[in-house]
C-alpha cells in the first residue's frame, strides 16, 4: 500500500503570500468598517454572507475564523476563554465561540482596539450552537439579530419546501435589514455577491480536485491558509480573482509534477478542524513522508463536490453555468437557497453520520489516501458529530484509522506529547519510519 521513497520536485506557492495579505486586509476591514462607511455585520462563517450585499458596502465579521485566530495566541486565548467561563458559560461549549465571546466580554479586538460593535447580527442556524451564539452577541452588544433557519433534514427530501422556507426567510431578512439600517436594497449588488460566492466555491472545489494527483500539489497546512478566503471573503470579487490565479497555479504544479511534500510516500486525510495552535502536527508527519492531502472539512467548508459524468467527484457548476435564471430577486434567492441546501458541510455533517461516511469513503478512494486521522474535537460538537460512526465505516472498509483527542481552539484540552506518540504508533502500523533515521 505504501509507495516507495522518491523525492519530488517542490517549490513555494506564489499565491500563498496573496492569501495572507487578503486575510490581513479582511481583519483590518473589520476594525475599520465604520470609518470606511461600511456596515459591519457579524455572524457565523456559514451564514448566507452575500445576503447583506444589497445594502451597499459591508464587512461580514465571521465568528469561527476569528475564534480560531485567537486560539493561536496562548495568552490572549487564555484570557478570552476564561472571560467566557467567568460569565458562567461551560468550558465544553464551542471553543471558537468562547474565544469570540471572551474577546467581546473583554472588549478587546485581537487586531487592536475595542471589540467591533456590529450594526446587526445575522446568522444561519444549522447546529446547536450558531443561533444561540449570536443570540448572546445580539443581547450583549445591543445589536439587532436576525437568524435564518437552515432546514437540514434528510438530503434530497422535500427540496422544494426547503427552498421555499429559505427564500421566505431571506425575503424577511431583506425587509428587516432595510428597516434596521435605513438603507435601500439593491438586487444587482445581491446578484453580484451571490455570483462571487458561488464562483469562489466552485473554484475552490476545482482546486482541491487537483490534489488527486500524485504527488499532491497542496498539503493540509497550505490548504488551511488558502481556503480561508473562500470563507471570509467569498462574496467579494477579490476572492474570485484570487482563486482563479490559485487554480491556474495549482494546475501548473500538477502539470510540472510539483509536490507540496517532496518526500510524499504516504497520503493521509484528517477529519474535523485541527488544533489551530499546533499546526506543526502536519510538519511532524512530513518527517515520515506523509502528505495530508485534505479532509471533508477543508474541502467542504468553502467548497462542494458532485458526481461528474465519468463517475468521479468534481466541482459543481455555478447557478449561471447551470443556466438558472438570475434576473429577479426571487431568481437569485432561489439559486442561493439551493446552493446552501446542497452544501455538503451542512447536508452531510449535520444530518446523519452515514451521509458523511459515504463521502469520506469516496474521498479516500479518489484522492488515493492510505489512512485517515480523526481529531476527536472537543471544541466543536458539530464536526465531532458522527465521527465515531465515520471511523467505524472506514475501518469496516479496511482503511487504517487513528484518533486523537483535542480541541480546535482551547489548548487546555490538547496533549501534544500524547498526540505525537499516537502518530508515531500509527506511522509504525503503516510501515513508515522517520526519513531522517
Amino acid at each position, binding site marked *: 500500500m505504501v509507495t516507495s521513497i522518491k523525492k519530488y520536485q517542490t517549490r513555494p506557492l506564489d499565491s500563498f503570500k496573496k492569501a495572507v495579505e487578503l486575510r490581513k486586509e479582511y481583519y483590518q476591514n473589520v476594525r475599520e468598517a465604520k470609518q470606511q462607511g461600511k456596515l459591519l455585520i457579524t455572524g457565523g462563517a456559514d451564514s448566507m454572507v452575500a445576503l447583506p450585499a444589497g445594502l451597499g458596502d459591508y464587512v461580514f465579521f465571521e465568528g469561527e475564523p476569528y475564534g480560531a485566530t485567537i486560539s493561536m495566541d496562548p495568552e490572549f486565548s487564555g484570557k478570552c476563554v476564561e472571560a467566557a467561563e467567568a460569565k458562567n458559560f461551560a468550558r465544553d461549549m464551542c471553543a471558537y465561540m468562547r474565544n469570540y465571546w471572551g474577546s467581546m466580554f473583554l472588549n478587546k479586538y485581537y487586531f487592536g482596539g475595542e471589540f467591533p460593535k456590529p450594526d446587526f447580527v445575522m446568522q444561519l442556524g444549522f447546529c446547536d450552537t450558531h443561533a444561540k451564539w449570536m443570540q*448572546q452577541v445580539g443581547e450583549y452588544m445591543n445589536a439587532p439579530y436576525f437568524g435564518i*433557519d437552515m432546514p437540514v*433534514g434528510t438530503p434530497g427530501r422535500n427540496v422544494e419546501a426547503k427552498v421555499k422556507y429559505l427564500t*421566505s426567510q431571506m425575503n424577511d431578512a431583506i425587509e428587516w435589514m432595510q428597516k434596521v439600517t435605513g438603507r435601500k436594497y439593491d438586487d444587482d449588488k445581491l446578484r453580484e455577491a451571490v455570483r462571487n460566492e458561488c464562483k469562489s466555491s466552485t473554484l475552490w472545489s476545482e482546486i482541491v480536485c487537483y490534489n488527486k494527483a500524485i504527488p499532491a500539489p497542496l498539503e493540509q497546512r497550505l490548504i488551511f491558509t488558502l481556503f480561508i478566503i473562500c470563507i471570509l471573503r467569498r462574496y467579494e470579487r477579490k476572492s474570485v480573482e484570487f482563486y482563479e490565479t490559485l487554480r491556474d497555479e495549482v494546475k501548473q504544479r500538477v502539470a510540472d509534477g510539483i509536490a507540496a511534500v517532496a518526500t510524499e510516500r504516504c497520503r493521509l486525510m484528517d477529519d474535523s478542524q485541527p488544533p489551530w495552535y499546533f499546526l506543526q502536527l502536519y510538519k511532524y508527519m512530513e518527517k515520515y513522508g506523509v502528505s495530508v492531502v485534505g479532509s471533508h472539512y477543508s474541502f467542504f467548508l468553502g467548497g462542494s463536490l458532485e458526481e461528474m459524468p465519468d463517475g468521479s467527484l468534481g466541482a459543481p457548476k455555478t447557478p449561471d453555468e447551470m443556466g438558472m435564471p438570475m434576473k429577479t430577486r426571487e431568481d437569485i434567492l432561489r439559486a442561493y437557497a439551493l446552493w446552501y441546501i446542497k452544501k455538503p458541510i451542512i447536508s452531510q455533517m449535520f444530518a446523519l*453520520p452515514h451521509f458523511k461516511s459515504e463521502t469520506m469513503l469516496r474521498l479516500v478512494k479518489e484522492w488515493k489516501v492510505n489512512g485517515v486521522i480523526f481529531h476527536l474535537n472537543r471544541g466543536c*460538537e458539530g464536526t465531532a458529530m458522527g465521527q465515531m460512526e465515520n471511523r467505524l465505516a472506514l475501518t469496516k472498509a479496511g482503511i487504517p484509522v487513528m484518533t486523537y483527542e483535542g480541541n480546535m481552539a482551547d489548548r487546555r484540552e490538547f496533549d501534544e506529547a500524547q498526540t505525537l506518540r499516537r502518530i508515531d504508533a500509527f506511522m509504525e502500523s503503516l510501515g513508515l519510519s522517520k526519513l531522517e533515521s
Partner: protein
Amino acid sequence: MTLDRAKEIVTNRHDYAREWKKKTGSKVMGYFCTYVPEEIVYAAGVLPIRVIGSHEAQSYTEPHIYTMFCPFSRDVLAQGLRGKYDYLDGIMIGHSCLHLRQAFGAWMTNVPASFSYYMYTPAKIQSPHAKEMMLAETTEFKKAVENWLGRPITDDALDKSIEVYNTNRRLLKQIYELRKADPPPLFGSEAIELVLSSQLSDKAEHNKLLESVLKELPQRRNGPQGGNIRLMIIGSEDDDTNFLRYVEGLGATIVADEHCTGSRYFWNETVPEKDRLRAIGNRYMNRPPCPTKDWESRRRFVHIMNMAKEYNIQGAILVQQKFCDPHEFDIPPLKALLEKNGIPSLFLEFDITVPIGQFRTRVEAFLEMLQLEVV
C-alpha cells in the same frame, strides 16, 4: 393508588410495550425526541413510545459516540445496542439537538429496524414560515408511514388521534393545576412519572389512568406535607425520578417543572382545523420550546417565569445533562433572570448515574438557605 400504576409503566416500560404489541398485534415505534408528530404514528395504529435511558453504567457506546456528547444520548443508544428495545419495529427523530441525532444515527446504522426516519422539525419556530415547513415535513412523514405499513392514514383516524392526545394533555394539565395548592396532592417525582408514563404507553389507556388519578387525588392522605419548600425543576431531559424522590425526602416539594419529560411535553393542545397535518404541526411550533429552538427572542423564559409565579415557587433546581449545549446556553441568563426575580437556584449537572451523596449535600445546603430566607 393509580399513581403506582404510572410508576409501574415507567419501571417496566419494555414489558408494557411488549404486552401491548402482543395484545394488539400492532407495531411499536420508538422516538428520540419530543419534537415528533406522534399523533400521525398513533393514527396509523402504531404505538409511539419515547426511547429513554436506564441510568446504568455502560461501555457499549464508546465505539459509537464520543464521550463529549450528553449522557442521555449515550444512555439511549446503549439501550439499543444492548437489545433492550428489540421489540421496536421502527424508530424516528425530529430535528432537535446534535447529541440525540447522533444517537439516532448510530442506532439506525447498528440496530436493525424496518423503518427509520429523520424528520426536519424547524428550529426557528418563531419564523412565520416555520409552520409551512413543518407541514411539508409532516406530510412527507405521513406518506412514509403509509408506505411502511401499506395502508393509508385516514382523516378520521387523525381526528381520533388528535382527540386522544389532546385529552391526555388536558388531563395532565388538570393534575398540574392541583400542584398549585399548598400542600399539593402529589409529589413532583410522581408528576414526572405521570408524564413519562404518558410518553411510554398507549394514550387512550393513559387517559383512563389520569382520570382515575384525578378522582383519587382529593382523597389522598399520604401526599406531600404542607409548609415544605416549594421547588421548581428546570432544564434538560430528566427522567431520574429516584433523584427527585431524594430531594423531596429533604423537606421540599417539587411543585412545577420545565422539562421535556414534564410540562414542555404536554402544555399546549392541538387546535383542530380542516387540514389535520397543519393542525398537528402547528402545535409543535407553538409548544414551550426547547432551548435549541428558542431564538431570536427568548420565549422559553416567559413560560418558566409564568410557571414560577403561578406555582408560587421559592427556589429552582436547574438540571442539565452534562455537555448539553442547548441548555448550557440558557442556564447563565436564566439563572440571572431567576435571581432578578428573587428566586434562588441551584445548578446540578447530571450524568448517566448521579453522585447522589454529593448532590444530597448540595441540595440540603440549598434548602437550608431557602428555609432561612422563609424565616
